[in-house]
């Protein structure tokens, strides 16, 4: 004990080289506490009003559980689709020159800017059986609006920018040499893509897909207009929260919200850690 003390006292006080550590960290923490964490206490207090068994009862209600399944499935499909389409978009935007590229690039952010309700109404208009797409799809015997498929469409629409915008910069930074090395070794384009480029993109792609997934889990405005909201079939968890709110049951609403929130945070945190490991292997730091 005394040795550690003496060492500590012998240690020179080193001022941080770059200015603003206290200011930037302090105000960041303050801001995060005020804007992000403090409101969370509301959630915690609401749920802590209920006992554990009641909490469990609320979050495992049959219909709520069904909504988890619907939501998760739809979000999985939507984010996987976004993974593929987002990768394609990012690839085309980074690798090729063609007229209209800038417009395409700008369009990617559109779903961020459009109010979700507008998106939902518009999608419902398009995909309803008398809509532009609905008519075509009806001929193929596919129904989108008012089915779980509609949920998928709405979710992927609102969250596509996440994938594109996380993959794009990494793809831009990718050094051509690794690719060239692969080609000189005789690999086909496909092998090079699959075995060399894709592994370098994994961290970004997975992050993008995860963000897209968590956003989809929470999506409400866009989904309810196209979902049909049939019990057990196309009710999403956000709707369950909404229902609890309509019933003035704040604790129950908070409880269900907390499930989604915790799941999302765990996912994001796990991915952060996985990504750090993966990147460490890649960059050795």
């Amino acid at each position: 004990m005394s040795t550690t003390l003496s060492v500590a006292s012998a240690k020179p006080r080193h001022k941080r080289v770059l200015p603003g550590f206290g200011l930037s960290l302090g105000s960041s923490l303050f801001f995060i506490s005020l804007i992000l964490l403090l409101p969370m206490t509301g959630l915690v207090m609401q749920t802590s009003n209920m006992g554990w068994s009641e909490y469990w009862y609320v979050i495992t209600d049959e219909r709520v559980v069904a909504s988890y399944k619907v939501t998760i499935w739809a979000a999985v499909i939507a984010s996987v689709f976004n993974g593929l389409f987002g990768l394609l978009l990012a690839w085309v935007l980074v690798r090729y020159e063609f007229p209209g590229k800038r417009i395409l690039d700008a369009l990617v952010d559109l779903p961020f800017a459009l109010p979700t309700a507008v998106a939902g109404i518009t999608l419902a208009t398009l995909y309803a059986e008398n809509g532009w797409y609905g008519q075509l799809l009806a001929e193929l015997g596919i129904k989108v609006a008012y089915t779980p498929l509609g949920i998928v469409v709405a979710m992927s629409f609102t969250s596509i920018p996440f994938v594109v915008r996380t993959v794009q910069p990494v793809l831009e930074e990718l050094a051509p040499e690794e690719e060239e090395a692969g080609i000189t070794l005789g690999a086909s384009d496909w092998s090079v893509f699959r075995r060399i480029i894709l592994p370098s993109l994994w961290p970004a792609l997975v992050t993008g897909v995860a963000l897209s997934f968590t956003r989809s889990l929470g999506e409400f405005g866009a989904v309810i207009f196209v979902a049909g909201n049939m019990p057990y079939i196309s009710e999403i968890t956000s709707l369950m929260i909404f229902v609890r709110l309509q019933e003035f049951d704040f604790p129950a609403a908070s409880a269900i919200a907390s499930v989604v929130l915790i799941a999302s945070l765990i996912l994001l945190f796990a991915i952060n850690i996985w990504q750090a490991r993966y990147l460490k292997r890649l960059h050795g730091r």
Partner: protein
Amino acid sequence: MASGQRHQQRVGDSPAVKYTLIGLTLVMTAVLLVVPLISIFQQAFVDGLAVYWDSLGDPDTLHAIGLTLFVALLTVPINLVFGVLLAWSVTRFEFPGRKLLMTLMDIPFAVSPVVAGLLYLLLYGNNGWIGAWLFEHDLQLMFAWPGIVMVTVFVTCPFVARELIPLMQQQGREDEEAAVILGASGWQLFCRVTLPNIKWALLYGVILTNARAVGEFGAVSVVSGNIRGETNTLPLHIQLLYEDYQATAAFASASLLAVIALITLIFKAFIEWRQERAHKAESTH
């Protein structure tokens, strides 16, 4: 003698692959993003231009536009400052909990906007512990513009930081260290060395923040109180018009939002174009 032959060098550069991918992307973008956009305008103009202008000229609509811009005007600078401070602290310093801070920053992506609104309501509403105090002191945060600004700040706060962090990480601290050694104070350092290096990313973050702030629906709807001509933002107003069997007016407002979005996005494209040109000019002389 063969002359002018070109080899494909990078993966996917062969014309067949290239044009297939570009084609596929354009088609999918058209289907998933462009047609919904067009459909908004189609529904806005379905009753003719006169009706369109009329519905935009409605005093409540004008007020909603004004309020929306006002909220964005407050939100953007707040998040700009916060984003820069947060990015500065996590990229320029090592401290325990850095990773956690970066995960916390993503909370708004993981929280459904409706839940976000709810969180604020639970805290600052009359039944919340802060809200009760506010009520006693006759301070109206919720159901007034401050509440709207607060939740909008919440929902949009990751955008600036998320744009800056990767860039600042990649640029490293050396430029700043050099400036400190040369005797620059914190403020000089930031304005003269850091800012010029990050200005484009910063601007992009601002544009995204703005786009999202203007379009936010779910969270705002919870805390707004929907008072016509007072706390109705444009997205809420659209919803209200729509609920009120005024679809055309609703879509006229929606198209206005889409136009705002497009203008900001085109502005962004313009900035990028300028940036590329500046970059080229710097490296070829």
